[in-house]
């Protein structure tokens, strides 16, 4: 029998994908009946680790996973569930057209003869929900239940499967303050039953309030495990981000020229209103704000992907009419979108095809696309941006995130844009590729391009941008200069304060540590 007090031990677990080591000798030990936070930035490897646990990925040779003291290597989620693991995913997708009880019993319906026993299912569901203190009508349709309720139902479902460990992946992303507190209560009730919980989050407040222990992984490496009682917030942030920006990047100064892009009174009701800013040649212009603050919608409007309803876009002093992306391309704007999979890549096409798609004309020979010309050009970009791929004919799906991103940047560089818009250009890519992309951005600014960059990573924005516009709920809170910008000021403006107010507060609260090395993420603000 299991005589250690760990319900789960993962020792020296590694996972290699083609071209990238997602996990490198990671350890995770979960005590029976504890709430254990798993922390790390986007792309740190948290979800890869959980997918191994859930039987979706097979780990590399050499690691050991023990569940209840016994070796554990699930082949599928069903395997994992049978062994006592349950996952409450970040985005719950219940069957909206079935009732609460039907969802609770989905896949293991109670039957009486050849029919389902609806009465029994309703009664049993009510019983389990009551025990956990989740008040919910069980016969209403799932479509009428809030996200928070759906989440609690998912937890109850996990409990009813006799789970020993429940994995919760950023459960509070879509919850309001009061809903979060109710969630905590339920989670503690679950814990009282001796069930361990792996709580994935990057909200510090939550981890301190709810969790007993915390393990941190960063860039696929195991950093450490601590008792939440023995560690300060600052120490935890340091574990998460290290001092990477400092080591990775120092910015050269760039000569800034005349105004190249000017935005006047840009409006798209429901998304953003009355946006005004300009970007100069050689300038890196940052846009900050919470997810959903309208920051991505603004650049999508400028590029004509989802055009604004009113307002002016002025390039080189002349008003331009951009109704669709091809108009923007004609005005030599490049746009690396936020979501690589959704709006960036053509996953089943080659690196070359992904690169050349916006303009095939240079590769035509008597009206036909010359693959020779195209691969010559993409090979050159491959070398220039150090894109790691066996060949430019490789299907892009086989590249790592960082290299895919480089291909997408190369796509626009081929058009020699004057204006380059980058929406979260370093999301989900490894540190090495990040550093290269930072360098590239500054090189492009030096070459006289106007760069617009959106990022959720504060340090990244502060390090790169000459000026930063901060968005709050679709409105422009203000624009701060590089010299004045600190994380505190931007956070305050992202909450709706004007630049003047934020600067004033910063002066009152001296000494403020300017550009300190802790990379706060916007997600932490809500706490």
């Amino acid at each position: 029998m299991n005589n250690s007090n760990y319900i789960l031990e993962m020792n020296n677990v590694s996972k290699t994908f083609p071209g990238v080591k997602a996990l490198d000798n990671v350890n995770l030990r979960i005590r029976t009946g504890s709430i254990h936070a798993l922390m790390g930035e986007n792309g740190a490897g948290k979800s890869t680790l959980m997918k191994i646990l859930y039987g979706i990925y097979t780990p590399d040779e050499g690691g050991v996973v023990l569940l209840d003291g016994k070796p554990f290597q699930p082949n599928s989620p069903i395997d994992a569930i049978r062994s006592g693991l349950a996952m409450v995913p970040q985005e719950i997708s219940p069957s909206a057209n079935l009732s609460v009880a039907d969802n609770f019993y989905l896949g293991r319906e109670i039957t009486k003869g050849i029919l389902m026993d609806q009465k029994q299912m309703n009664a049993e569901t009510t019983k389990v929900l009551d025990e956990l203190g989740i008040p919910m009508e069980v016969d209403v349709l799932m479509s009428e239940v809030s996200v928070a309720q759906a989440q609690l139902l998912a937890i109850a479902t996990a409990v009813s499967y006799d789970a020993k460990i429940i994995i919760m992946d950023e459960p509070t992303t879509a919850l309001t303050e009061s809903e979060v507190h109710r969630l905590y209560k339920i989670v503690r009730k679950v814990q009282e039953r001796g069930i361990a919980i792996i709580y994935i989050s990057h909200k510090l407040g939550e981890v301190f309030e709810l969790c007993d222990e915390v393990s941190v992984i960063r860039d696929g490496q195991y950093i450490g495990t601590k008792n939440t009682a023995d560690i300060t917030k600052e120490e935890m942030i340091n574990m998460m981000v290290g001092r990477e920006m400092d080591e990775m990047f120092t910015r050269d100064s760039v000569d800034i020229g005349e105004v190249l892009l000017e935005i006047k009174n840009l409006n798209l009701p429901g998304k953003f209103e009355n946006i005004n800013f300009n970007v100069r040649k050689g300038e890196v212009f940052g846009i900050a704000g919470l997810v959903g603050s309208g920051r991505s919608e603004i650049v999508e409007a400028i590029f004509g992907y989802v055009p604004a309803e009113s307002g002016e876009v002025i390039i080189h002093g002349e008003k331009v009419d951009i109704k669709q992306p091809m108009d923007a391309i004609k005005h030599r704007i490049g746009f690396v979108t936020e979501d690589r999979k959704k709006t960036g890549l053509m996953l089943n096409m080659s690196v070359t095809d992904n690169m050349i798609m916006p303009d095939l004309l240079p590769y035509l020979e008597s009206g036909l696309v010359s693959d020779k010309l195209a691969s010559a050009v993409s090979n050159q970009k491959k070398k220039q941006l150090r894109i790691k791929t066996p060949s430019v004919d490789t299907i892009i799906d086989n590249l790592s995130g960082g290299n895919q991103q480089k291909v997408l940047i190369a796509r626009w560089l081929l058009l020699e844009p004057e204006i380059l818009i980058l929406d979260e250009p370093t999301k989900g890519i490894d540190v090495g590729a990040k550093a290269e992309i930072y360098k590239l951005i500054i090189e492009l600014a030096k070459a006289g391009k106007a760069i617009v960059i959106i990022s959720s990573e504060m340090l990244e924005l502060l390090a790169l941008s000459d000026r930063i516009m901060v968005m709050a709920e679709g409105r422009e809170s203000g624009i701060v200069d590089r010299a004045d910008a600190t994380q505190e000021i931007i956070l305050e403006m992202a909450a709706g304060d004007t630049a003047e107010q934020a600067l004033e507060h910063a002066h009152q609260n001296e000494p403020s540590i300017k550009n300190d090395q802790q990379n706060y993420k916007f997600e932490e603000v809500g706490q």
Partner: protein
Amino acid sequence: MIATTTNAVRDMNYSAFFHKYGMVLILILLFTVLSFNIEGFASFRNIFSILEQVSMFGIIAIGVTFAIVTAGIDLSTGSIVALASVVAATLVTGSEGYGMTLVAFGGAMLVGGFCGLINGTITAYGRIPPFIATLGMMTAARGFAQLFSDGRPVDASSDAFTSIAGTSVFGIPGLVIIYVLVAIACHTMMSRRTFGRHVYAIGGNVNTARICGVNVEITLVKVYVLCGVLAGLAGAMLTSRAFAGNPTFGNMWELDAIAAAVIGGVSLAGGVGSVPMCIVGALIIGVMNKGLNMLGVDPYWQQIIKGMIIIGAVLLDAQKRKKS
């Protein structure tokens, strides 16, 4: 150690090879097995007869391949064959000389193209799924064909017109020559022209295609017009071969065309496929039809076998995608 590495490399090459040429191998295998079992199966005469039968729905399959690669579909091609056949027959009947023949072929392709234009416009600008848009056209075009011909066959007696299907050059039937020419032109268009690259881009990721400045709507309209034109051409070819147009022509051909593309490995999920793939698929169907006929297999059983092969091909495609 070295041995295992090279083995691994070789295994990978094998699987890549099967991935790419699996259906060609199956075609060769099928043909070889039938040749050993049926006397005269491997003769030129028989091969050309197979090709001639394949040529018409094979041409439709080429158009449908474009639609499927954009992650769309065209169900109306069979009905367009019928409509085009009665139009071509009406135009050409009683005439002499190749002038009217050209007019008849042109008219058939024009009518087909017009149907395709409607399909494409409804799909691209009306944002109606192509399955529904072309399902409507499938019913409507058949109705128009009946209306136009009073529900009766239309005589297409014109020596020049029927000679298109009747003559052969060096033993190669006229219809096969048309098939080969269309295949070369469409293959070039798909693999080498900007239009073809945009077709792949739309099937690969329509959002990205838009971001890259591809005019998605116009490209889709072109795709469905091409489908219609090729179906119209097939209608004229069939009329030339049958000496008549008939509103019942082309029944279920749309499904044979889709089957040819799918068996050849064109992915219904979009983004993957080519003209050669769809030719291989059409040839597999053609060889199998002929072989089963010559073996005297019950036609009911022939349908059952064909159905199973289609399902098998789709399963294979799903398997491939799961692996990658």
